[in-house]
């Protein structure tokens, strides 16, 4: 059973459907007991960092998450990945969950090619930096779908994969059993489904 953390942000329809398509059991929940009983966790997220972190904190699930992440695989998606970092500079400075060493910074000022648009919206090739069981079913260079204006920075030791947006943009990270993808596997077609399948087998 996969527990998708429900803390009031984002649209979980596609995530639920894609797990269902893979024949995986999933529950959308904010219940600590259900999270403890699950064998893996997904932390979704869309919107602004500060607001999402405040909502997550308000559910009282942060200590549960910190404890459970040591015992079972956790996958943060998009803003959910960013929340795994130590801090973010999106509209001020906000503390994150601190699983991944590094910070979340605005993409625009760091781009080498200033004519590129922010948000990065669309399909980009995923370049594997460090081989990992998460990539068991994909090849180097497959395309994944991104929508984001901020990105994970100074996280070299955790970086598993990057995409080129005139600079290498953090695509996937890992620290212990905690994983994160900046792209949306549930929106990345067959490639995304294969990544979710690999996560379900970690």
């Amino acid at each position, binding site marked *: 059973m996969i527990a998708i953390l429900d803390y009031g942000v984002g*649209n979980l329809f596609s995530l639920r459907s894609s797990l269902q398509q893979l024949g995986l059991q999933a529950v959308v929940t904010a219940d600590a007991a259900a999270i403890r009983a699950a064998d893996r966790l997904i932390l979704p997220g869309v919107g602004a960092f500060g607001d999402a972190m405040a909502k997550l904190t308000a559910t009282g699930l942060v200590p549960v998450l910190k404890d459970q992440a040591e015992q079972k695989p956790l996958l943060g998606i998009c803003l959910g990945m960013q929340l795994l970092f130590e801090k973010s500079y999106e509209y001020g400075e906000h503390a994150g969950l601190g699983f991944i060493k590094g910070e979340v910074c605005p993409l625009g000022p760091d781009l080498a090619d200033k004519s590129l648009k922010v948000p990065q919206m669309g399909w980009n090739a995923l370049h594997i930096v460090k081989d990992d069981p998460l990539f068991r079913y994909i090849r180097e260079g497959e395309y994944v779908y991104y929508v984001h204006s901020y990105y994970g920075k100074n996280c070299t030791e955790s970086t598993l994969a990057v995409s080129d947006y005139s600079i290498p943009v953090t695509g996937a990270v890992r620290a212990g059993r905690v994983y994160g993808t900046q792209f949306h596997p549930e929106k990345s077609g067959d490639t995304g489904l294969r990544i979710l399948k690999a996560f379900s087998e970690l």
Partner: protein
Amino acid sequence: MITKRIIPCLDVRDGRVVKGTNFEGIKDVADPVEMARLYNAAGADELVFYDITASFEGRALFTDILTRVAGEIFIPLTVGGGINTLEDFDRVLKCGADKVSVNSGALKDPGLIPAAAQRYGDQCVVLSADVKRVNGQFRVFAKGGREDTGRDALDWISWCAAHGAGEICLNSIDTDGVRNGFDLEMLDAVAARVNIPIIASGGAGKKEDFLELFHHKGIDAGLAAGIFHQKLLGIRELKEYLNANGVEMRL
């Protein structure tokens, strides 16, 4: 690097896909769910569904189709048609849409753009604009291209981009259905004014039209309907052609 996107558009009325020429003479083409599967398998980067139904029954049918498509196709889905309120955003997002396209609804109530962006994020709000030349000016049209609003299109689009629209779908009424190429002059004018992704719509007739389109700076995606529906151009064939000619594509 980020790829250019190829987007088939499905206009749905009473549960069926239709496509008009110059917004008139609509004829039935196929079943939307079946078509979505075919396009997904062919490598479409995104799908756009427009609900052009007027009836209550047709609207319920559309929501049902959307739920079925979103339940099995995992690429971005944009939904438009009849989006006038935040409740309309909510209705289609709950059925699995990722982005919502607003057109006449925003012209009636421009506040809908910032309100939707605030609630769902800029990335969710697509401004769809039907634009036509009138007395040497780009004018925005409402009601499916039937009504001249008198508004300057470039000012309108810039305003929306500054107030929460995350993407623009620019449909040239002048070139729509003519199949003689995209309206590059109009697209260039818009690209010079905004820095959010631009989807070009109206006028695609052959693969060379897309190649020419993507040589223009600031255009992120090409959208078409009839040429794909009538199998005059295959999506995979188009993407392979573009890729071979130096335009990065997801293949």
